[in-house]
């Protein structure tokens, strides 16, 4: 197990180097010139050229990459071209809303989806099962922003129960924090509820057809115990896998949800940076997101052995 974890950590380093190179190349080869954008719409060709020179954007790409990679290794993600603020500081500043949204979304999604999925499997073929499946298809098909606008219209504009947008840090009170996060978390969580519920149902149905489940029932084990102890635990690997994939997908969802609900998170930071061609921020955030993705995948892999003793890394 330890050797496996060590090997995976080494491979993570390689993946991160490749990710850094790709991020750098993709951004610098994409159309868009920060100097032209900074200079403004009324700048002349001469003014843009002068600014490009000042920003060091005329240096060869390899030189720019080496300069950037060296600084990143030293923990310096650079400074924003526009505001001059350190990128690492900006990311840290924006972490709380993003982490809050992601955690609340996954909490809502996992608790609700696993319960619904188990219930649908237990009542396979019934009205409950069909309703859950219809809901799952809907939840997966309707775009996040449509759900968001709909919820805003109902709960913020019409009923006036919850704020339309914005974020209050948890330090200023749990209630306002939660009020600002309920709609975004439900909006974002809906797709994950649908995804995880479908997989949970399918995995549970497979396991419920196994001989040991029939044996357990024949021994007189209660239906609840059969479902939760015998079936759910053995269906855990695909469920955990899909939750892991969900965390990765969440990164994209967070960007849209933060935009719709005006949450000042990392997603908004990167959207703003892309429109401005603020290279250091785009690179920094993408690198951090890549790191999160890789680490989540590692944790998922390691968790298999804990969930299912048959899985061994020897």
């Amino acid at each position, binding site marked *: 197990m330890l050797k496996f974890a060590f090997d995976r950590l080494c491979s993570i380093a390689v993946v991160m180097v490749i990710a850094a190179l790709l991020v750098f190349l993709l951004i610098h080869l994409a159309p868009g010139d920060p100097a032209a954008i900074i200079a403004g719409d009324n700048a*002349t060709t001469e003014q843009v050229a002068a600014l490009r020179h000042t920003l060091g954007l005329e240096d060869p790409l390899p030189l720019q990459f080496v300069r950037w990679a060296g600084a990143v290794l030293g923990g310096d993600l650079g400074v924003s071209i526009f505001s001059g603020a350190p990128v690492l500081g900006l990311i840290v500043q924006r972490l709380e809303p993003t982490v809050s949204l992601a955690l609340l979304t996954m909490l809502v999604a996992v608790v609700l989806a696993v319960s619904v999925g188990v219930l649908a499997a237990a009542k396979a073929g019934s009205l409950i099962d069909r309703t859950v499946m219809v809901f799952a298809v809907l939840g997966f098909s309707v775009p996040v922003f449509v759900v968001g606008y709909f919820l805003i219209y109902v709960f913020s504009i019409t009923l006036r129960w919850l704020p339309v947008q914005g974020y209050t840090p948890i330090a200023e009170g749990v209630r306002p924090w939660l009020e600002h996060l309920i709609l975004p978390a439900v909006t974002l969580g809906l797709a994950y509820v649908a995804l995880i519920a479908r997989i949970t149902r399918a995995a549970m149905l497979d396991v419920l057809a196994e001989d040991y489940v029939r044996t357990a029932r024949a021994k007189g084990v209660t239906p609840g115990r059969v479902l939760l102890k015998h079936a759910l635990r053995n269906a855990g690997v695909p469920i955990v896998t899909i939750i892991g994939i969900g965390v990765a997908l969440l990164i994209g969802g967070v960007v849209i949800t933060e935009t719709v609900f005006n949450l000042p998170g990392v997603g908004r930071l990167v959207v703003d940076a892309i429109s401005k061609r603020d290279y250091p921020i785009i690179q920094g955030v993408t690198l951090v997101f890549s790191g999160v993705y890789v680490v989540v995948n590692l944790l998922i892999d390691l968790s298999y052995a804990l969930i299912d003793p048959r899985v061994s890394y020897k």
Partner: protein
Amino acid sequence: MSIDRRTVLKSGSLAMAASALPWVARAQSPALRRSLRAVMQADLRSFDPVWTTAAITGYHAAMIYDTLFGIDGEMKPRPQMVSDYGVSDDKLTYTFKLRDGLAFSDGSPVTAADCVASMRRWAARDTGGQILFKYVADTPVKDDRTFQLVLRERYGLVLETLGKTSNSLWIMRRREAETDPTQQISELVGSGPFVFNKDATKVGVAYVYDRNPNYRPRPEAPSGTTGGKVVKLDRVVWENMIDEETAVSALQAGEIDFYETPPLELLGRLQSDRNIKVEVLNKLGNVGFIRLNWLHPPFDNRKAREAMLYLVNQSDIMKATFGNEEYYRTCASLFGCGTDMENDENTGWFKSAPDLKKAAQLFKEAGYDGRPVVILQPTNLAMPNMAAQLLADWLSRAGVKAELAPSDWGGVVARRAVTAPPGQGGWNIFVSWNPASTFASPILFPGHIANGRKGFFGWPDDETHERLRVDWTMAETVAERQAIARRMQANAWNFVPHVLAGQWVAPVAHRTDVRGFVPVPDLVPFWNVEKV
């Protein structure tokens, strides 16, 4: 104990009402009565109005800095920080005396040395300032409150340039004003009506401005960017909200008070809300233009450029983009419509356009050889996006092979600077716009420059036009400038630097309890604004 259905409903209603209380309290809290939350046209990318020409940075500057002169509601320059000024008989020496008691927000007095340093830094970057300083021989400081502008030769636009409302001359402390103009300033201290609250600001999220207790407004009524800039709010917060639908909802819910650029398709929703007022502050609005690349075929040929005059149907572009005729008009004047310089010289083409047959004939006479015409299409901006698609259709119908090059606006901004042929990363056409107030000036709108590769993208080249631009700057009266403007337009529509796409105004939306906006072209000022 038993609970009946009615009890459950009553309890539920009370619980729902109780849960709504914090929301109501938030909307009506007395602490927020003198605080205004606004969503502006764009995120504030940079804080230095000399370093960038971005309009939103100009808005920011108007909050925290003041100007020597301003432009009043009649578009005339009037003193702002200056109390008295005089011009020598030979019109070569301008003497300015600052108002008594002017101070920066840190308490230090505004001096003539601050003004001269600010002027020199601004003139190093701003197009209008650069032209002015071609005529400036010296800027001597006479005493703490008096300085001069000594010219080498007469220049007719001294006060207009010092007071202009776009890329204005903002007065900073000398220590910031002595920063290299290619570097951003780090301290934001001005003598304007508001103070930038750095601690409460979260870059990219919200920008906070507090009332400047040291600010001394002029006694006159506000007019344009002149007169008394009386602050009636304690705090103004600019929220950075990307999503238009969310901003509209936030305005309806009372979470913000002002939205500068509500999308036209959602105006109906706002107009039907009795708590919202939709109004046009900038009556001159914006002028759209279609820029043609003079460096490559077919638009290196005058006939092909003339063909574009007959090809474009401004009405279609405006209708497709804005829908409601209340907000747009067509315009044939090189200087925009409704401006001082508007005229109808050499606009016969406008009366017969669109005329696709005539356009096709002119392209043929230009020797069009069938190579694709590359149109840059910014898919994230409505007007240029619509115009690009319509242009592609019209060109095809006139026998010209059109090729759209879609990207976001950032992509267009980068590609329009490329001088290589269209097939090698260059371009033939891009569409943009500028405030009509700037469009009216042959000096302030860079699209009016026709000095070839040194000028604005498209790089038109016409000696007569350049000579007339100089003549215009030398003219001392509006009537003289108007006469020169007629000659410029007569010449311009022959060599065709660009083609107009139409003119429009953009309404703002705000809560009905907010009032007092002073109409200013190129700016939304927050002085005189109050919440009642």
